[in-house]
């Protein structure tokens, strides 16, 4: 199979405009006869479903939640990037494009990323028109802030709840289309398989989560906007239900899974506190605008903090190691996520971590509080303010900026971050890998489109902060509505697909057999216990730092665990009823296969790039060493039951950007 990215010809800056002007269109009278299935109702899914419905297509939308508004996009905190250049700091479409390619460590497609950055401004306009209450200046205009890996302020935000507000905007548009009868909404329906008719994606099998009933749905095309697979690590910042199953089922029907080993580890999460822990909570990257990351310089100080004999406030300024500022003076605390995560891990590996586990570093707001306090005192006309007044005023400024995050931190840890520095540690946050798609966001299975985090296309080996929301909405509002026409234009005479056909019979039977197989095991261990063990293997060997030997061990261990799973799993209840344990079991079963593929991919990629750090490939200073000669390609994998997974390569051609060693020093 040769992978054709279908990148249109012409200069980078005008590719998308020209392509869009010459694209195949579907006339309004024909759109009414064409059905599109959209799975997932997060930013990408909701924006796609509503936009396609507004254009006149008949849309069927699916979510496993009780409401489309629950999708995990809602948890995104910090913001959304756009090349508006409102702050007049030299931003441009090209600069956003360049930063994204560089931030992704040169492992994404130039044309896709440029398009993303072209449409970024439209997203802000669209969201404002929907009533998204972005932060504003006193003059009534939109405010911006900075995020990691860039030197301009291009991030729009709605306090620390930007994802929530953008999703409510998209959910509003979706709700409007539901009320107009243009979208049929199926809540509490989980996609369990993809149905191909003559090699094209034409339907899905779902399980009604209230009744356990399997149902069939057909469409002229299937759009997956089903998010990322970070929960393969068990502990992550993802929501509990987030899973890979829709994408993985598509992969087992022939779609290729691209760069599955590219996982983002977010540097600022609340550290693990115990074995019972079910998830990790992110503290927004925006905090690194004002927080300074440090550990004690001296090992003895770190030990005494771990033993709770001393507090961080006892450590003198000169005895602190602000390691990001020291190692990366140009970007300081705002280096990209992969760089910050590894530096934090290194500090802890060297024995200077804080918190009883030794796996935490400080994120300290004391200097920001003092700085803001002084400037607020000036603006309020307070002469010679004393220290406590400064701190009081400074804390108020910090509260205005990050109040909800500080509150969230205190709720979880019981510590007051205004007085004591936050303790943070890296955690799994986002997956750059995903189903392979071409420029049209169509996978190698014709008629199967993949949007948002579920595809691999825009972030290379590392995603920059505030770019996930941008990509999800770009794909849904401004890309798929056009590019899906390239496929559907050939189907204007194709009648609605019936579901009582051999193709649907066969896939539904396979789903039924799969569920029965799981229910019949009747062993002794819970789904949760297997998931937890899988997570441990993945974090240990396929986590923040990987090596060849460890990856080989991971592959063996995962296989062993999978065998045990199919022998000793216990699911209570019945198949044809509301059964959360069964839902979890199908997800974990899929994670176990994906996990193996991730390890294979990581083993194959003998270089360090972005979030993928191979210990064998690093410079003497410990920085990642990329190998552009041998690995400037997308690894798109075909799953094979016998473990001999086949890789298809898409070479990445950089015509506009010179490949450089990424430096934030």
């Amino acid at each position, binding site marked *: 199979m040769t992978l054709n990215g279908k990148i249109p010809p012409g200069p980078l800056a005008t590719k998308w405009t020209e392509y869009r002007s010459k694209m195949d269109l579907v006339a309004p009278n024909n759109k009414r006869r064409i059905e599109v299935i959209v799975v997932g109702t997060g930013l990408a899914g909701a*924006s796609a479903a*509503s*936009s396609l419905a*507004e254009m006149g297509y008949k849309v069927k939308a699916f979510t496993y*939640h*009780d*409401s489309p*508004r*629950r999708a*995990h996009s*809602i*948890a995104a905190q910090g913001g959304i990037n756009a090349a*508006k250049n*409102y702050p007049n700091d030299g931003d441009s479409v090209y600069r956003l494009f360049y930063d994204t390619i560089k931030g992704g460590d040169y492992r994404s497609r130039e044309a896709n990323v440029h398009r993303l950055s072209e449409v970024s401004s*439209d997203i802000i*306009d*669209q*969201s*404002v*028109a*929907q*009533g998204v*209450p*972005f*932060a*504003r200046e006193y*003059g*009534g*205009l*939109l405010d911006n802030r900075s995020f990691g890996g860039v030197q301009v302020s291009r991030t729009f935000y*709605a*306090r620390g*709840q930007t994802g*929530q*507000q953008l999703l*409510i905007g998209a959910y*509003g*548009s979706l*709700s*409007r289309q*539901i009320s107009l009868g243009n979208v049929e909404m199926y809540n509490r329906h989980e996609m369990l398989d993809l149905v191909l008719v003559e090699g094209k994606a034409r339907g899905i099998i779902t399980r009604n989560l*209230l009744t356990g009933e399997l149902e069939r749905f057909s469409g002229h095309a299937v759009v997956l906007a089903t998010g990322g697979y970070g929960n393969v690590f068990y502990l992550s910042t993802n*929501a*509990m239900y987030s899973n890979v199953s829709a994408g993985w089922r598509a992969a087992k029907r022939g779609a290729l899974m691209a760069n599955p080993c590219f996982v983002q580890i977010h540097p600022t999460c609340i550290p693990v*506190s*115990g074995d*019972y822990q*079910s*998830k990790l*909570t992110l503290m927004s990257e925006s905090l690194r605008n004002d927080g300074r990351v440090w550990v004690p310089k001296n090992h003895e100080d770190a030990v005494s903090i771990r033993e709770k004999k001393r507090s961080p406030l006892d450590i003198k300024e000169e005895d602190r190691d602000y390691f990001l500022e020291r190692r990366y003076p140009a970007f300081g605390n705002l280096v990209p996520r992969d760089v910050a995560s590894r530096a934090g891990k290194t500090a802890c590996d060297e024995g200077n971590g804080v918190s009883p586990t030794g796996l935490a570093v400080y994120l300290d707001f004391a200097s920001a509080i003092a700085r803001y306090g002084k400037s607020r005192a000036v603006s309020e006309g307070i002469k010679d303010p004393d220290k406590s007044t400064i701190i009081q005023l400074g804390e108020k400024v910090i509260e205005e900026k990050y109040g909800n995050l500080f509150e*969230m931190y205190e*709720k979880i840890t019981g510590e007051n971050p205004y007085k004591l520095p936050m303790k943070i540690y890296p955690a799994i946050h986002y997956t750059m890998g995903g189903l392979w798609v071409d420029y049209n966001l169509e996978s190698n299975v014709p008629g199967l489109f993949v949007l948002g985090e579920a595809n691999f296309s825009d972030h290379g080996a590392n995603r920059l902060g505030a770019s996930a929301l941008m990509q999800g909405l770009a794909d849904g*509002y401004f890309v798929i*509505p056009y590019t899906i026409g390239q496929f559907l234009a050939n189907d204007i005479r194709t009648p609605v697909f019936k579901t009582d056909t051999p193709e649907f019979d066969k896939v539904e039977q396979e789903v039924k057999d799969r569920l029965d197989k799981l229910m019949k095991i009747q062993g002794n261990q*819970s789904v*949760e216990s297997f998931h937890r063990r899988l997570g441990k293997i993945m974090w240990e060997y396929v986590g923040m730092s990987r090596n060849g030997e460890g990856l080989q061990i991971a592959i063996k261990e995962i296989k062993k665990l999978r065998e045990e799973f199919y022998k000793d799993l*216990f699911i*209570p209840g019945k198949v044809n009823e*509301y059964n*959360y344990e069964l839902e979890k079991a199908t997800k974990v079963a899929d994670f176990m296969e994906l996990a193996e593929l991730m390890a294979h991919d990581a083993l194959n990629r003998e270089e360090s790039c972005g979030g993928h750090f191979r210990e064998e490939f690093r410079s003497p200073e410990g920085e990642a060493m990329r190998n552009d000669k041998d690995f400037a390609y997308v690894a798109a994998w075909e799953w094979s039951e016998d473990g001999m997974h086949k890789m298809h390569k898409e070479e990445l051609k950089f015509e506009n950007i010179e490949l450089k060693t990424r430096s934030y020093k």
Partner: protein
Amino acid sequence: MKLTLKVWRQNGPSDKGGFEKYKIEANEHMSFLEMLDVLNEQLISERKEPVSFEHDCREGICGTCSLVINGRPHGLLTGTTTCQLHMRFFKDGDTIVIEPFRSRAFPVIKDLVVDRSPLDRIVQSGGYISVNTGNAQDGNAIPVSKEISSKAFDAAACIGCGACVAACPNGAAMLFTSAKVSHLGLLPQGKIESDRRTMRMVAQMDKEGFGSCSNIGACEVECPKEIKMTNIARMNRYYYKATLGSDK
């Protein structure tokens, strides 16, 4: 810490349901839902049916989790969802009573899981600004004062969990509906269809079987996002304007 849990078990909407008692060992660092995870692992190891409860993000933003804990939606803390409640707020030896969000419009699906889809239908009746993709002008074309934007945000912070409904003796969804009406009605972009939106959303609210507001205020106290009752007053003003105002 050793705890006794009295948990509502109900096998489907038509089942009568009742409390079951469980003994459990927890620790103070756990979140409330992690404590329930432990209970479920315990039940599964005894080959019994785990307790059904809904949850997802576990960081207080998706609105999926619910539970009435010792008589209070989302538990004793204000401004906190159940998933953000930690066990350090309980004592060794406590008995904790756990019930679903009960209201006429929210039928129980199983155990602690209820059907909150009426809230979606209220939004579908008008909780949006009618703008198609591609219609928008520049984001800075209409300035919005910081104060108005901030007020709109306060209302838009609603997570649609339904605690306000569960807290209300009348089973009203006024706080939920008024938060949406206020969020959009305050902004210049949403003012244009404010009359229509308010009337349609109020009508849908009544149709779904929610009660009326009698200014009790439990909704505001229990709202995990601290949405204010002033939104209800605003919705009433909008409603009067839309139905009886001098423009009509």
